[in-house]
């Protein structure tokens, strides 16, 4: 590998000084993404504004064997855009143009640095919107959404990012431009569109995205149901879906989350409830009316103590404002919090909630629960103070146990935030060594030199062997081919 000075010299032939950062104080703001517990100062930060510049940058990195970490808005919660000390951080922030909106085919062509919400704002004049709505949607970039397969509160009905994009233009580390997917609703060859979505910047650099747009629903109404037992609320989620309703959103908040959110944004939540469910129904006026009535009946039958239907659009927005502000609201309760992202089968919600309560007591740490309950996607927020020695480590251990339990009951360690660096050890729990080896082979098919975001998403087998908490399947020691340390 070449030294830093010579690398910077080569890059400076491509990029003006305003687009190439390499002094310590300029690099500092890029040391982490939204998982700020992990920080690394990169070798340099490149902020290209043309595809030609990206191509030239990748060519140098490929030639000199310098790893490349792509970064969008830096709102990721799993450290997927954490820089590498010996690597280049490639910011795609300047690729922020919506290139076209096709109101007839319900699609838009956008650059990777475009903010998620900006797409819906631009499409709204055509009566269309982009469905996936992660809670960071005012800031997060669509390129990052593709890299992480981002979700949001409307996934159960409208799907994740993978269901809402139809074409990508990407650049491989070898410098080849690929068009993946096409303008139609399927494409020949392997489904690399699905593979690329959620690949955490490890297969190729995204240059352009064609997203699918949907008609804005004519009517959306929300029910807020209160419960005096969080487990009963959990069961009510299954009851609603079991009766054939697919809500546009079905969110659960526990007592601590209700109080935190309501104190913060005055959403009108009942402080005496042990849990609330927000159930949104959208569609045509008649459909919404029919399903709203049915949902109300089911929720009552399932043990809701109080049911409120937002009386107008202002109140609907107010109900959602509490949910959308839940994370920052919890941030006011404690110096730090750690957000988990496990997903479980819905019928396990009550069971997993109990396990979280037990673990919370065992560790003496408060856990606040905010769930995308309709999807079985949990976001337990563990409160801690990073200034207290050892508390971050204890928190990570507690979080790890929650995720292990999610896997145990048939779920997964991450529903929408990605593995990144944060959950890389838990990957060893979810997958065996053959599966992990297969993942590495997939990466190698795109990136033989292992230069794109190495070390994220997929652990090395060595790492799994060293990480104690692996699962033992049928009494067989995992990764028997490796030496123990």
């Amino acid at each position, binding site marked *: 590998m070449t030294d830093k000075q010579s690398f910077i010299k080569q890059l400076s032939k491509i990029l003006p000084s305003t687009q190439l950062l390499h002094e310590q104080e300029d690099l500092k703001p890029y040391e982490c993404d939204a998982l700020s517990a992990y920080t690394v100062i990169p070798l340099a930060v490149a902020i290209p504004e043309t595809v030609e510049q990206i191509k030239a940058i990748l060519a140098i990195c490929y030639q000199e064997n310098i790893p490349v970490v792509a970064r969008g808005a830096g709102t990721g919660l799993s450290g997927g855009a954490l820089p590498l000390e010996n690597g280049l951080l490639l910011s795609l922030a300047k690729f922020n143009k919506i290139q076209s909106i096709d109101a*007839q*085919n319900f699609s838009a062509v956008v650059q990777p640095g475009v903010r998620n919400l900006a797409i819906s704002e631009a499409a709204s004049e055509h009566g*269309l919107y982009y469905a996936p709505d992660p809670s960071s949607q005012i800031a997060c970039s669509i390129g990052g959404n593709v890299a*992480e397969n981002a*979700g949001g509160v409307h*996934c*159960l009905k409208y*799907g994740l990012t993978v*269901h809402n994009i139809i074409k990508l233009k990407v650049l*491989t580390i070898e410098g*080849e431009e*690929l068009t993946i997917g096409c*303008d*139609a*609703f*399927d*494409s*020949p*060859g*392997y*489904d*690399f569109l699905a*593979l690329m979505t*959620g*690949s955490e910047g490890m297969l190729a650099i995204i240059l352009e995205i064609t997203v699918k747009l949907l*008609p804005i629903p004519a*009517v959306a109404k929300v029910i807020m149901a209160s419960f005096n037992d969080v487990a009963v609320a959990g069961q009510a989620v299954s*009851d609603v879906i079991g009766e*054939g*309703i*697919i809500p546009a959103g079905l969110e659960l908040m526990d007592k601590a989350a209700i109080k935190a959110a309501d104190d913060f944004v005055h959403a009108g939540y009942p402080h005496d409830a042990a849990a609330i469910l927000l159930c949104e129904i959208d*569609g*045509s*006026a*008649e*459909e919404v*009316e*029919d399903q709203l009535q049915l949902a109300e009946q089911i929720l009552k039958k399932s043990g809701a103590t109080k049911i409120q239907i937002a009386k107008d659009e202002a109140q609907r927005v107010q109900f959602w404002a509490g949910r959308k502000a839940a994370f920052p609201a919890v941030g006011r309760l404690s110096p730090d919090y750690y957000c988990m992202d496990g*997903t479980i*089968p819905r019928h396990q919600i009550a069971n997993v909630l109990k396990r979280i309560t037990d673990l919370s007591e065992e560790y003496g740490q408060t856990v606040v629960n905010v769930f995308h309950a*309709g*999807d079985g*996607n949990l976001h337990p927020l563990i409160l801690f103070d990073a200034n207290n020695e050892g508390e971050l480590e204890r928190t990570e251990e507690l979080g790890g146990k929650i995720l292990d339990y999610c896997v145990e009951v*048939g779920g*997964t360690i991450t*529903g*929408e*935030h990605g*593995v990144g660096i944060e959950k890389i050890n838990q990957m060893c729990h979810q*997958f065996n060594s*053959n*599966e992990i080896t*297969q*993942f590495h*082979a*997939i*990466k*190698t*098919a*795109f990136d033989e030199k292992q230069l794109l975001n190495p070390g994220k998403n997929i652990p090395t087998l060595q790492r799994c062997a060293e990480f104690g908490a692996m699962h033992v399947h049928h009494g067989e020691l995992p990764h028997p081919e490796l030496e123990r340390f």
Partner: protein
Amino acid sequence: MSNDLSQDLSNDLRQQVENAIENKTPLCITAGGSKAFYGNNVDGQALDVSKHQGITEYQPSELVVTVRSGTLLSELEAELKANKQILAFEPPQHTANTTIGGAIACGLSGPRRMACGSARDFVLGCTIINGKAEQLRFGGQVMKNVAGYDASRLMVGAQGTLGLLLDVSLKVLPMSETEVTLQLKTELSTAIKHIQQWLKQGLPISASCYTNHTLNIRLSSTHSAVSTSVSTIKKLFDCDAIDNNFWLGIKNQNHDFFSENNLNNNQQLWRCSHQTNTPFYGVDEDNNQLIEWHGALRWVKSSEDLYSAADTHSGHACLYPINQGESFTDIFQPLAKPLMKIQQRMKLAFDPDNILNAGRLYTDA
């Protein structure tokens, strides 16, 4: 839940792959054989998955079913129907022997695709045997899962070239309370324009099919929503309600249009996929086209090769020799060179000895 035929042959199938690797014998994965026409002939020893059957997990309120690949599609759909649920991508059932494994491996989606999504959109996880005879599980049984690469959706349409499918976990959806099909006379461009408008108005259109100046449109929702939508359409067009079974013919591709007898001299059936508002091309007569997916999927009877025409219109074409009883080579739209290179590398990443369904999609990959 399991049915009478329930049988787990995972170990046996894995053993057969292991033997094939050892003996350097290429394998041709088969089950119902109903989509044999959809790709190149595979030169290899038959590996029959059809006895690997059974629904292994199904809790309707989870909206997820896990099913062994040899299970008959008809059996799976009947079980779902008994619980008022459906496979919303409506995979074609070409014959009584069609299996769910074949449906997923081929990745074909039916009339409801535009409303609900395609086959791959409903795959949550799968277990495969790769070309190293390893049994691997990817994805899961939950709605959201971003742990590791999305290898399970990669299997959809790969036709067994990356791995033998042992089981798949699929998202299922509730049946609509009611469905109505309307038939009306119009021209294609008018039909597409109105469909777009109706979708924006929130009409619950779950399928459309245009052929021979006739638009068939299916509405699926609650009674009152469907009834209001029918009134909206009737204000603009004279139309008749027809039997919903019309869509079975489209889904299963046994509607008259697909019959070999309806191909004229030198004509072949093509499946062309496009943006919805692509103009007519490739044929002059309307009755040589059947158009689904609000204009995005076009079945075209043509005596000309349509690859370059499809490409010109930003889409792709595939020769579709259903009911023709003869095999054709390299029926799919050729891939751009850089993409083909990655496709070849991906094949080797899963199947380094090229044992599994070699050359099924493309002679070169």
